[in-house]
């Protein structure tokens, strides 16, 4: 999960779009949730 922490918000949003994961803006209170969603998608 940690390797997503190095991504910028813009990069993270691009991965969410690439994986077609529904999402809102990446802010402090949502970032962890979206990193988890990507991790789950990739695993």
């Amino acid at each position: 999960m940690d390797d997503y922490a190095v991504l910028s918000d813009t990069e993270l949003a691009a991965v969410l779009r690439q994986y077609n994961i529904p999402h809102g803006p990446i802010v402090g209170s949502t970032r962890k949730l979206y990193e988890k969603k990507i991790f789950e998608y990739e695993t």
Partner: protein
Amino acid sequence: TSQKHRDFVAEPMGGKASGGAWPGIGDALGKRLEEGGFDKAYVVLGQFLVLKKDEDLFREWLKDTCGANAKQSRD
């Protein structure tokens, strides 16, 4: 809906404490939410809005943040 739910919706969102006062969220979960900085109803409402009112995302966030199970997060 439960009495708790009726009480909750009866008062304005502005000053609502979170924690045990919420339908579905008992004292234990409410405590964890407060520890996570979500100590007022409007802050959790803000999180729902920032998640673009997506119920699935919101429920998942609630589960991750305070361990709410499916029923609790639905309530």
